[in-house]
């Protein structure tokens, strides 16, 4: 039987091999290594801080945050879940995972929100960005683990970079969506009063898109957590490593303990970030007020509100 392969064969594997091995690695390895620097420093800082804080302090902080954003129920859950993790003896691993997640989400937000804003402002940018985001989301992460190892080496930081690739799309998409969905008449009103592009962004678009952006952040966080086991394959530590080694040694118990730790952490972070988004929908305060309400007992936030009026 005839098939197109009789006429033309496409050696895509050879092409990619030569692209990565013969072009990217020799020429750009140092460039990619340099890219790691900011990730490394942020990760080291967060990791050191979380490991330096006593278990009780971390628990107290997270419980208070949960109480102020998501309410009493989630706060109690946070307290119990974190105590449980400590009792299983996985506290240091949990903190390593948490610092990885925080670092990758931080970088996702720092890159993703501006990218989303850019995409929202130009149809052409969105047109180019959309297929790239599709690929990032659909391509199996194992495919890019190998080139990442070749370019970045092994360890925590390459693990975080793989996580960033996987977790970036939702925040870009939802930032874009949130800003595009701001009512056209509000944009027009802001324009009619002579707002500059930046004023429009800060005064109108971002505050009104904040709820959607927070939903994107929540999704990004969840994807980042789902990557911790895969990141362990290329040398990242933490709960992922516990699961991975448990898997390798057929140690069901250790894998389960690590898995439960990941799930509990995921639930706590999910509830807190979701509540942040919903809280915005009710009164829709500015980003600053949201942060204020997080770190104060409400008093300063109110003063701030009065001041900005």
């Amino acid at each position: 039987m005839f098939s197109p392969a009789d006429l033309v064969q496409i050696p895509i594997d050879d092409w990619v091999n030569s692209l990565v091995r013969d072009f990217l690695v020799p020429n750009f390895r140092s460039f990619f290594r340099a890219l790691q620097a900011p990730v490394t420093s942020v990760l080291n800082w967060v990791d050191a801080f979380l490991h330096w804080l006593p278990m009780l302090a971390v628990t107290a902080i997270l419980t208070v945050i949960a109480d102020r954003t998501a309410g009493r129920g989630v706060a109690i859950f946070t307290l119990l879940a974190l105590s449980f993790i400590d009792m299983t003896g996985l506290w240091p691993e949990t903190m390593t995972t948490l610092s990885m997640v925080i670092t990758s989400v931080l970088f996702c937000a720092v890159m993703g929100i501006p990218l989303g804003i850019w995409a929202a402002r130009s149809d052409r940018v969105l047109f180019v960005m959309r297929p790239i985001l599709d690929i990032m989301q659909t391509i199996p992460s194992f495919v890019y683990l190998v080139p990442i190892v070749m370019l970045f080496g092994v360890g925590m930081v390459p693990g975080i970079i793989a996580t960033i690739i996987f977790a970036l799309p939702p925040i870009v998409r939802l930032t874009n969506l949130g800003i595009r969905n701001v009512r056209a008449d509000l944009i027009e009103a802001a324009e009619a009063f002579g707002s500059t592009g930046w004023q429009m962004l800060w005064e109108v678009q971002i505050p009104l898109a904040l709820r959607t952006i927070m939903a994107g952040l929540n999704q990004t966080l969840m994807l980042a957590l789902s990557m911790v086991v895969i990141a362990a394959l290329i040398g990242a530590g933490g709960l992922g490593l516990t699961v991975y080694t448990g898997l390798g040694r057929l140690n069901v118990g250790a894998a389960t303990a690590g898995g439960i730790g990941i799930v509990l952490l995921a639930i706590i972070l999910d509830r807190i970030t979701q509540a942040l988004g919903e809280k915005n929908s009710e009164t829709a305060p500015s980003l600053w007020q949201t942060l204020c309400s997080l770190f104060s007992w409400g008093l300063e936030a109110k003063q701030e509100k009065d001041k900005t009026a």
Partner: protein
Amino acid sequence: MKPKLRIENVFKIFGERPEEALKALEQGKSKLEILEETGQTVGVKGVSFEVNEGEIFVVMGLSGSGKSTLVRMLNGLIPATSGRILIDNEDVTRCSAERLRNIRRNKIAMVFQHFALFPHKTVLENVAYGLKIKGEVAHRRREKALKALEQVGLAAYADSMPGELSGGMQQRVGLARGLATDPEILLMDEPFSALDPLIRREMQEELLHLQKVLNKTIIFITHDLNEALLLGDKIAIMKDGAFVQVGTAQEIVDRPADEYVAAFVADVDRGRVFQASHVAGRPVTVEQSEIGAAEKALQLMEKHNRNALYVVDKGKVAGVVAYQELAVAAREEGRTDLKEVMVTDVPVVHPETPLNELYAAASAGYPIAMTDSHGRLVGVIEVEAVFSQLSGCASENGATSGNECASQAKTQGSQDRNVQPR
């Protein structure tokens, strides 16, 4: 008076190739033909007008007539395809983005149909938005915004969120936001059409009241003819992107330019459009203390073919005498003192009184006296004149009387300027 805003032959074509559409327009093709042939939509075609300082210029048209596009071109929200838009002799279609932003910040503010209040800001922050954009410091912002809120009577709601207010209150906030930057020109894009009828009436009256104090130049867009007639110093009727007629409320109701306008004004309550001054005639009077006043009054009535005549005392209304009573009294009974014969309880109205409030005065059976604010007699309204104006006699009576009506209207029109202190 110097025009604040002058619009010269402005076109707006929506689409990729406006030149083609402009060319087709020159050939006299219609909006629909152009859309079919070139794919371009004609938004506004060849509109020119002038608005003087302190005037309310109303653009009235149905949806799709291009009125919203027109008003958005005035502050550059939609760029004009061709033509000139001059604000204080500065062409906004040709100035830089920076300059345009400055004009928007300082000279021209806008009030929107669906209020367009920022839902994440308090009422006060909403009102202060334009000031914040201009870079005013926080306490000045607060001060000015509160002042603007006081003007619309909502200072008590400064710290509420817009979502907590009713539609009418929200639009007051929208108006306050427009006034806060103290602009010279206020663009109002169907500001009251999303409101309930009663609230709408209230807002219209409030706008007129505010305008007396603020004396802004207002461009007001509406699809409601009654609103246009009530508010507009000048009214433009817009259809398919062009002005069909521009004039005062009375001109538009009295002499519609074509059938389109005529159909619009057909069921207008003329009693509210026209005022006493529009139907008043020049007063024929006698001075009360004059010697031989009675005989003079009789002669005057005979000469002018009147049934009654006003008697004045140094310009002020003293009373009215009817021909029959005076003739009996003076010529048969020899009582020549007007004071004895005249009726002193006379119907008196002001020049601005709308015709539909004249009915009670007319029922007295005498002509109605029209006095100015000092009580001086400035006009006399024959009851027939009221009815002929209300019936729009120019269009309904026979040919000759129709002409009569038209000429009568014209002389009355010229009289208006004399009598009505504007």
